[in-house]
């Protein structure tokens, strides 16, 4: 469930109200530190958790900052643009902006984008895009004009897709909107016309976007108060042609239709968006979190002093203006999984990184790493694959021989070499073979346990349980919970018996040994206050597996009355330490089918039953949510129809039965003679 935490104000200095008061908030290369660019002359670096400024820089009187300051993640330097064309680059030691590096460009800059993993990208107002390094090498280079006359950029964002940046910007011309996608891997710029569909009259007020491997999902907030979604392919079929994309309604009336200003929209994660604006025409402005999957309002926070229609989201913090102050509202969304109901549907949380295929799709696995969706090209890949399968790369041969005899260190070195080589289409089978080879040596030579190599191989994201049977068993044997967690997260096809064995191990491993191991805590990152409760040892009388502390029967009634309370306490406090919780979460996220899991679950020892009950409660809560999914609607509807017809049949059958009974009664009356009679019987 998404939740907003207590808000706090970042700047003590009042800013100018409205959109001009604040140009932007950007991440710096250090966590928890953000660059806030005031509309005007100042850039301030804040440490958010301390609510404290770490540094402040201003441009000279007469100059004006035109573009929010960003951090170059590759060098740690800060970049700002003033007077549209002048770049300033500095770092934290610099005091005076006037004395730092300066570059004057030949065209006006719209925005500098900087994200992890790539150099900053400069977007010019005419639509051209340049990498910062190329630009600094020749500042006065000619910048081409991409956009037509009267076409202006309204919004822009950059993503990392398969380690390459993809830049999107939206322009407007005479009320029409266009989307441009600039990819840097293939250096293509594709243009799309945003087709408004039926809602022609509404004016788009705000944009946000997220990326999902092949598509950019562009969301827009229109003046009618609804959120629309448009899917734009990252790699167009024909880059030269101007294509039209249609938007579809995603959320209805999230803000009042007539709201003039102060509306904003930003994507938080796969299923959640944050919306800024007044929910009702007369009401105060609000920050609301909506779940797009279930179409539900998750939480909302009123901003009585008004806001500016600007909203930024980084990490776990939402930044916005509240009145004249920059306000931070920490946002968290507990990881909830519909594991039991939907099977495995794991989504990578942050866009731009590699996503794991949800199901074993051999076709995509083969093509993985090529980044090409062109059908003609994939045919070529298939043809090429036939040749390559028969001729494994030499690094592989080398590696196999190393595995057979050399030390773990040597193997690691060889493995690094192997992984550095470009991936072949049958990469996953080769990786599987390597793992099997390593495991083979492990079985013959139990002291040999190349943990690092195995971890590295699992992290290639191409392995599955069936590709390397025995890996999890070995990890179970070694109580290597970290590797098990990784396997549970990565493998889509773990047998239920192994899942259960993992569960048993996770439940039985001592807290002390957990403390020493390194476990990915991402799934329980919001569990801030661990309750370190030790389970009580089993005492005399147990009620349904729970200890009721019953010494004699006289206290039974009292105990029974207390029970609901106890149960409530039981559910509110998590009985496991966060590390164990992270491991259990991995189990819950893994795919299983109840029928096969249940027989193994019976083997869970008694002292772990409390934890099991707690998990069941968690799952139950999730199940109730499932029926609300739009996808379930059709199923429910047909189910309803079916049941209705069944009831119909049953009621008719009942009527027939009653009629038969009446007939039978009549029949009986005819046969039923009096209590006494004398009859003639002839026997022969």
């Amino acid at each position, binding site marked *: 469930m998404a939740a907003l935490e207590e808000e706090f104000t970042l700047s003590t200095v009042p800013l100018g109200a409205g959109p001009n008061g604040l140009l932007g908030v950007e991440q710096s290369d250090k966590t928890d530190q953000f660059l806030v660019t005031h509309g005007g002359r100042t850039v301030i670096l804040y440490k958010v958790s301390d609510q404290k400024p770490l540094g402040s820089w201003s441009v000279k009187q007469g100059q004006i900052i035109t573009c929010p300051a960003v951090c170059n993640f590759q060098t740690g330097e800060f970049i700002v643009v003033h007077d549209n064309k002048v770049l300033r680059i500095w770092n934290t030691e610099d005091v005076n902006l006037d004395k730092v590096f300066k570059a004057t460009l030949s065209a006006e800059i719209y925005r500098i984008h900087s994200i992890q993993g790539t150099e900053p990208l400069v977007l010019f107002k005419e639509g051209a895009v340049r990498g910062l390094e190329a630009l600094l090498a020749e500042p006065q280079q000619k910048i081409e004009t991409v956009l037509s006359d009267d076409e202006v950029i309204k919004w822009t964002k950059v993503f990392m897709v398969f380690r390459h940046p993809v830049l999107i910007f939206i322009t407007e011309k005479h009320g029409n909107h266009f989307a441009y996608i600039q990819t840097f891997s293939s250096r293509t710029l594709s243009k799309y016309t945003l087709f408004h569909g039926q809602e022609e009259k509404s004016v788009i007020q705000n944009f946000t976007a997220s990326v999902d491997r092949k598509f950019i999902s562009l969301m827009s907030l229109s003046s009618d108060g609804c959120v629309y979604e448009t899917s734009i392919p990252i790699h167009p079929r024909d880059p030269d042609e101007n294509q039209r994309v249609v938007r579809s309604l995603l959320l209805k009336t999230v803000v009042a239709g007539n709201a003039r200003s102060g509306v904003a929209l930003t994507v938080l994660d796969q299923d959640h968006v944050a919306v800024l604006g007044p929910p009702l025409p007369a009401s105060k402005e609000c920050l609301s979190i909506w779940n797009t999957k279930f179409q539900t309002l998750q939480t909302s926070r009123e901003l009585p002093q008004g806001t500016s229609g600007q909203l930024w989201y980084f990490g776990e913090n939402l930044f916005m203006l509240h009145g004249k102050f920059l306000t931070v509202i920490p946002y968290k969304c507990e990881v909830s999984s519909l594991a039991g109901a939907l099977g495995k549907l794991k989504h990578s949380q942050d866009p731009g990184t590699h996503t794991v295929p949800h199901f074993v799709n051999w076709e995509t696995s083969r093509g993985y790493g090529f980044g090409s969706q062109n059908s003609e090209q994939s045919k070529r890949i298939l043809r090429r694959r036939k040749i390559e399968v028969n001729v494994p790369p030499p690094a592989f041969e080398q590696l196999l021989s190393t595995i057979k005899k050399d030390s773990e260190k040597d193997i690691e070195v060889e493995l690094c070499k192997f992984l550095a080589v470009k991936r072949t289409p049958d990469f996953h089978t080769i990786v599987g073979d390597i793992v099997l080879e390593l495991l083979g040596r492990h079985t013959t030579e139990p002291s040999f346990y190349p943990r690092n190599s195995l971890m590295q191989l699992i992290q290639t994201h191409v392995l599955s349980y069936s590709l390397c049977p025995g890996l999890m068993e070995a990890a179970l044997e070694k109580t290597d919970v970290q590797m098990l967690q990784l396997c549970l997260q990565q493998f889509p096809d773990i047998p239920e018996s192994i899942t259960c064995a993992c569960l048993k191990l996770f439940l039985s491993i001592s807290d002390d040994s957990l403390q020493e191991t390194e476990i990915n805590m991402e799934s329980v990152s919001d569990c801030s206050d661990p309750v370190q409760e030790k389970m009580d040892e089993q005492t005399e009388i147990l009620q349904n597996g729970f200890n009721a502390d019953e010494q004699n029967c006289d206290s039974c009634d009292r105990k029974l009355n207390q029970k609901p309370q106890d149960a409530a306490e039981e559910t509110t406090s998590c009985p496991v330490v966060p590390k164990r919780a992270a491991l259990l979460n991995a189990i819950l996220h893994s795919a299983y089918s109840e029928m096969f899991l249940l027989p193994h679950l019976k083997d869970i020892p008694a002292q772990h039953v409390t934890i099991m009950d707690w998990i069941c409660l968690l799952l139950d809560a999730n199940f109730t949510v499932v029926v609300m999914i739009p996808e379930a609607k059709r199923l429910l509807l047909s189910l309803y129809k079916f049941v209705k017809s069944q009831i119909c049949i049953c009621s008719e059958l009942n009527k027939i039965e009653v009629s038969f009974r009446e007939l039978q009664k009549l029949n009986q009356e005819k046969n039923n003679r009096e209590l006494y*009679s004398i009859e003639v019987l002839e026997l022969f």
Partner: protein
Amino acid sequence: MGEFKVHRVRFFNYVPSGIRCVAYNNQSNRLAVSRTDGTVEIYNLSANYFQEKFFPGHESRATEALCWAKGQRLFSGGLNGEIIEYDLQALNIKYAMDAFGGPIWSMAVSPCGSQLLVGCEDGSVKLFQITPDKIQFERNFDRQKSRILSLSWHPSGTHIAAGSIDYISVFDVKSGSAVHKMLVDRQYMGVSKRKCIIWGVAFLSDGTVISVDSAGKVQFWDSATGTLVKNHLIANADVQSIAVSDQEDSFVVGTAEGTVFHFQLVSVTSNSSEKQWVRTKPFQHHTHDVRAVAHSPTALISGGTDTHLVIRPLMEKVEVKNYDAALRKITFPHRRLISCSKKRHLLLFQFAHHLELWRLGSTVATGKNGDTLPLSKDADHLLHLKTKGPENIICSCISPCGSWIAYSTTSRFFLYRLNYEHDNISLQRVSKMPAFLRSALQILFSEDSTKLFVASNQGSLHIIRLLEGSFKHLHTFQPQSGTVESMCLLAISPDGNWLAASGTSAGVHVYNIKHLKLHCTVPAYNFPVTALAIAPNTNNLVIAHSDQQPLPNDKTLLYNPLPPTNESDVIRRRTAHAFKISKIYKPLLFMDLLDERTLVAVERPLDDIIAQLPPPIKKKKFGT
């Protein structure tokens, strides 16, 4: 054979008592059944389900629990708080012992058969040691807060499960303390019932406890952890009884809706060693509550309020397709409840606590086969004779002349003299009957009504000479040395010279009444005797056994009339034997010849019995 006038009597308003408990004994293949009036019956399943013994009921002795112990000893417990042991030889109660825990609701004998547990109203579970001739209180287990309705031993004898109201307790037998308490959900179809009564528990050797309760659930519990493993909601009403087979691969439960469900342990998939309890077959042989079930190696046995004892053979366990493979429904007692005075056309009906005397009607008309003749005089209810005291009547008889009525209860023997003056009847009790006559199992008058034969439960046979208004003890045939088997069937030859008497197994004794000595003994047959008669004129003794063997062939000694000559071969062959079959009657409780050409038949249609029971739980056949 000829034409008969048949008096078809359907006014014998007899309703058997409902079945409360059944207990199956594997060693002897016998089934003990207790009824709501306190009667306990013993059925011999090997002898074609013949009810070979019975213990008469008692108003204050409602049995709630029944079980067999080592050495085929039978115990019962009831609402009067007494544990009773039955003497299966002498057919009387060996002793009754107060358990001092209030009404007894449940009972269980340990797997080795030497310890007896009773569950009482006050929440106590009491352990008794079974000694060779009695039982001895050993100790109490931890007392629970409400009555113990069901008990079951773990096959190892170390733990027991006890079903109470809203929870099941698991006790350690050694310490007598509760180790687990398993609360049962009161919820019933989402509605919270006031209480959930655990009607039955069964403890399996793998530690699973199966419970059945008033919310319609069959639940599987893990007794090691005290957790619910599986839940089957099988009925909208109470599930009242459970019985598990010795192999623990199948069990049966009975519900208040009259349904019996069979559960079996079957493999999850073929070839898999993993097994799962699956509800396999539902049987609807009852209309009312199934209060008790038992599981013999080859059959499911159930009984309840609708008074039927139903034996449903498991077809997969039956090897030969014979009588044993057929469904059995036993409703009526396997003994005589009616006697007839031929001379005066009187019928004496025996009920649990009273006798009724009826005079048959008459007709002057004649007709052909199948005709119902117009009555010139209807049947009359002459007399209603109520017993004193709480005991049930064991047996009764009216003399052929109609002037004497005799009946017996466990503690007293009654003889009445009837005087007929026109339409008035006066009744005169013969006082000072000797004490040895009480608890008689069978009473018979000689054809000329001058002698009374009484078979006592000690195996002896008394002969009494009847005089006008008084009697004289003539002779007593003592049982043969070493046997105490009581006689339950008597037959006298029409000439009054020969008396045949039979017990359940030891053969038929024939006595010479003139010389008052044992004439001969017919060797015992594998199956018990169910009926005896001596043919007039020939003095041939006819014995019927419970095996219902095929009809005798043409060479039989029995009088075989010439078959009709004008019929086809097929019919002639079919009718070539001595037995003539008519299938037009409802269940017959009595049949006798009043004279050469007149028969009396007492029928008891099952529908009439069902009509007298409280209405069953209404259940839609096609549920919604």
